[in-house]
């Protein structure tokens, strides 16, 4: 990986090579659609001076207790401790879903108790594991302030427009993630009046791009959502669901998935199924973690640092 880290112009092939890599975080900058890796995380953090910084965490699966990680609440707490120890306090946090494992009130309560210790504003979108209670009301009761439909919304921070989408409801047999007509209509209207120079960040649970359809890793109508964002010079799409870091750049759009705070899943096609991956105990924390995202104003530059719980 050192060869990769020191490389200047990173080719698409090397970006792909990085997908399956886990270890110390890499700082990504994107300029004119060309991703460049600037160095390993400590250099990157030191080099960074100002700009909007926020955090992404994902797939906490509070309540999960199977061999892949018997204590998902414990590793969430370790991530939270890591966040509390950051040298520079982020503006806020986004959580890209699967907060709970089985949508039990106790799981949501435990997650809230731990995440609240960051003392950050948290913007959530639901994962499919957050809509399993019979009445589908627990998620909305807790995170439903200001949301539309099943839980989508947008907000602005430091000139960046953030859009939280829901692609885990009304799923169809044989299909992938699904946004649905009502949400797409709302999205089109939401971005229509924004100027093309507004940086856009879209976040949702399941990847909006097709990662691996055999395992359902993609969104049926994701391409339509992205078509509404074509005019914008900087679009960043942040997802979870696949419990590993993957990155892809297409034109002005950077796609990125975050690690889980609970358990890793296999790389596409590398196992019979996408189920929780049991790794040796001393490897687990290298495969869990958080993502730190920085925008430098007026530079159309974005940096994502993926930090594992343990280097």
């Amino acid at each position, binding site marked *: 990986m050192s060869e990769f880290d020191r490389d200047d112009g990173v080719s698409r092939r090397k970006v792909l090579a990085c997908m399956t890599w886990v270890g110390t975080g890499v700082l990504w900058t994107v300029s004119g659609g060309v991703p460049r890796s600037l160095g390993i995380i400590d250099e990157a953090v030191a080099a960074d001076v100002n700009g909007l910084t926020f955090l992404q965490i994902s797939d906490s699966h509070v309540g999960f207790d199977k061999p*892949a990680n018997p204590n998902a609440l414990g590793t969430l707490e370790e991530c939270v401790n890591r966040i509390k120890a950051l040298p520079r306090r982020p503006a806020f946090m986004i959580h890209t879903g699967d907060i709970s494992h089985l949508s039990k009130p106790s799981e949501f309560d435990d997650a809230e108790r731990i995440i609240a210790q960051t003392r950050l504003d948290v913007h959530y979108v639901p994962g499919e594991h957050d809509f*399993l209670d019979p009445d589908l009301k627990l998620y909305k009761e807790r995170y439903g302030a200001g949301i539309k439909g099943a839980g989508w919304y947008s907000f602005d921070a430091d000139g960046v427009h953030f859009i939280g989408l829901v692609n885990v409801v009304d799923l169809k*047999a*044989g299909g992938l993630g699904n946004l649905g007509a009502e949400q797409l209509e709302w999205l089109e209207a939401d971005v229509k009046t924004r100027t093309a120079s507004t940086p856009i960040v879209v976040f949702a649970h399941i990847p909006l791009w097709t990662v691996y359809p055999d395992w359902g890793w993609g969104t049926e109508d994701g391409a339509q959502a992205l078509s509404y964002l074509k005019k914008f010079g900087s679009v960043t799409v942040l997802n979870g669901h696949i419990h590993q870091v993957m990155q892809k750049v297409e034109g002005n759009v950077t796609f990125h998935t975050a690690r889980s705070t609970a358990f890793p899943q296999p790389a596409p096609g590398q196992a019979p199924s996408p189920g929780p991956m049991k790794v040796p105990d001393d490897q687990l924390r290298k495969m869990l973690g958080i993502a730190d995202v920085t925008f430098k104003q007026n530079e159309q530059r974005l940096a994502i640092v993926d930090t594992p719980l343990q280097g």
Partner: protein
Amino acid sequence: MMRSAVSAALIGAAVGAALAGGVLLAQAQSAKTATVSAAVSAAVSIDNFTFNPPTLTVKAGTTVTWTNKDDIPHGIAATGNAFSRSPALDTDNAYSFTFTTPGSYQYFCYLHPHMTGTIVVEAATGSNATP
């Protein structure tokens, strides 16, 4: 019905004419028992994000039980809500539904919709039914 009569006749021939009547009776009873138990319940196991067997054919009146063998929850939902949806099934949890109406029922996992399966329900046949 036809096949069971033939095999009973073959067994009867093998054990000899003197015992034929008794063997035929026993065979008829065991065939009936097998038919009845097959008509009562059937199983689908969920393994590695797959329904096993992917297509299950049963007689009307059969209770189908799905059991989740994965380390991740799954949930059963029928296309068009043709039968009732299961709660989320954690590891080793099971869900049963009794199919009374013949037809082909497509279903999927509502957490992982790329997982699909089919239950084919055939008209019940019994002593009163026309073969």
